[in-house]
């Protein structure tokens, strides 16, 4: 072991159903505020050029919104940051429309729809919007996508000794794909991770693989959210951070391996 997989958390951002930001989410996870369920509200960030803002698809709005929430909260210049984007799927509506067109007699796909179909669409728009020319990893590990992104981000911080913005996001699909992938709504989480504590660190994370079972949430509605949206597999970790409770939290990752995250303050 040459470099432990650990990092300081400089900021956190969340956007999900009834969870417009991290302060609200933290209050819900602490139990000091009730969770008023409402569909996730997505808006296209002003940073995008007007043409791109008009055409921004759901996952792009989601990923850019949480990413910007996190850089704003940390007071960091987004243009200099390495990023890790991780998602279980691309934009469902866009994919549906392409497959429907290809199954029809006229197979001409719109160019915009095609370039929005790549899994790295959000990373591309992020780089255009913020001017970030640093590397961007774009990952998928099905339901384990949050864990995969966290591992990659921690490795970048530990090995490359640079801050790294982790952005995990998933959005719902329309029918008929929805029946095969019943993600109910959009949920995104971002964390700015860094090798040094900075001025106001939220805490410190380290991670390793384990075969122990993943933690569940005592609140049945939050547990439903955790299970339904891959990016929300992060919620047990977010709960420990919101409650300022140091300790070991096992997160869902792959079929045969979970991720043991140690949170300390």
């Amino acid at each position, binding site marked *: 072991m040459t470099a432990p997989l650990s990092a300081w958390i400089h900021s956190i951002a969340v956007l999900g159903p009834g969870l417009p930001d991290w302060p609200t989410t933290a209050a819900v996870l602490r139990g000091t505020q009730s969770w008023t369920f409402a569909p996730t509200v997505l808006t296209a960030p002003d940073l995008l050029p007007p043409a791109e803002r008009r055409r921004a698809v759901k996952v792009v709005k989601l990923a850019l919104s949480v990413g910007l929430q996190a850089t704003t909260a940390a007071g960091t210049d987004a243009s200099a940051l390495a990023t890790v984007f991780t998602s279980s799927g691309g934009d469902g509506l866009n994919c549906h429309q392409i497959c429907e067109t290809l199954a029809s007699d006229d197979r001409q*796909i719109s160019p915009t729809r095609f370039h929005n179909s790549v899994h*790295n669409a959000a990373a591309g728009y992020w780089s255009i919007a913020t001017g970030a020319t640093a590397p961007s990893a774009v990952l998928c590990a099905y339901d384990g996508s949050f864990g995969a992104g966290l591992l990659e981000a921690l490795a970048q911080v530990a090995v490359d000794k640079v801050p790294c913005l982790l952005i995990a996001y998933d959005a719902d699909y329309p029918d008929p794909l929805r029946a095969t992938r019943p993600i109910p709504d959009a949920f995104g989480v971002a964390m700015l991770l860094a090798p040094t504590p900075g001025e106001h660190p939220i805490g410190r994370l380290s991670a390793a693989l384990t075969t122990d079972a993943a933690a569940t949430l005592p609140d049945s509605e939050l547990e439903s959210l955790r299970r339904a949206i891959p990016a929300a597999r992060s919620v047990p970790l977010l709960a420990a951070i919101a409650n300022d409770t140091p300790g070991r939290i096992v997160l869902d990752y792959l079929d045969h391996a979970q991720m043991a995250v140690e949170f300390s303050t």
Partner: protein
Amino acid sequence: MTPFQISRYTATTCLGRGIEPLRDALLAGRSGLKPCHFETVALQTWIGEVEGVDDEVLPARLSAFDCRNNRLAQIGLMQDGFAQAVQDAAQRYGKDRIGVFLGTSTAGILETELAYRRRDPVTGALPADFHYAGSHNTYSVGAFVQAWLGLTGPAVVVSSACSSSAKVFASAARMMAAGLIDAAVVGGVDSLCLTTLYGFNSLELTSPDACRPFDRNRDGISIGEAAAFALLERPAATLADDAILLLGVGESSDAYHMSSPHPEGRGARQAMEAALASAGLTAADIDYINLHGTSTPSNDAAEGKAVAAIFGAGTPCSSTKGATGHTLGAAGGVEAVISALALRDGFLPASAGTRDPEPGLDYLLATRQQPVRRALSNSFGFGGTNCSLILGRAG
């Protein structure tokens, strides 16, 4: 970075299964491209199709993964003793100490396209045999390869369009440097489908003929499919002279446009400079550049400017996409394998299809046989995602 050994490598492309037919075709300057008669596609373009993919049968226990992409992955895993080399590594390190890092852009989207033709006419539902996780999801090839090889370490799919299977080398190298794993299966699998054929056609980026990278009259890409794999480990204590090492990796983002590169090749240049810095080398140390060289007017122009700015006109270079087609998410893996072959066997592969190259580069129209010590391989993708790899011989 600390070098890693690429202890086994293999690629299956339209030129054949495994590295021998690939090497023979490159030495002969031969192309595997042919006019497109794929599925029901009605487009005037050429493709690089792997023969016999639909005849491949997956093991019964993995039948949920059945799709063209995973059939192609299985064919690829069985060439050049690759699967056996991974089993040997699992014996040495433990099956939980080997990661799987694969690139794809298509995953098994062809299965979804075909399922949409079979939707229930009343309810619109997809057919019951459609398996989202096994074929459609971007991670499907990662889950399939990990299960097929019986590995239990970390696994992930990188899906950053055409840089995907170059960037996996960076992710794997970081995980090994961090001590999380002792070895990694890296590579990429991308397969022909309607989305990429019609999509690139809609962007007017496909050629009506076989592609001609860096030709003054180039007019677009020829889409191919491929499976490429490499086994990455810490270098053995004693290395044969022809052992292949990963010496450096450089990544960048264009921050410019979703489907056009920065016109001056800013991101390409940044990735190549980062790779040289990562390897502790200068431009003069590179003997061959495997260009991204998609054969579109704007991509090749931008890459040519970036290469000339760093290397001048003296470094031999070529794109091998005239032979293999542009294998999209698998291109970085295929071209890393081609670079490894060039290093091992001492040759500089010609650019099949190119007749009248752009001036200003030492662009290879014929294969040259000469020693190669270090090679740089470029992979640049949609959304402005760039990655350059530097491979070298041990001796």
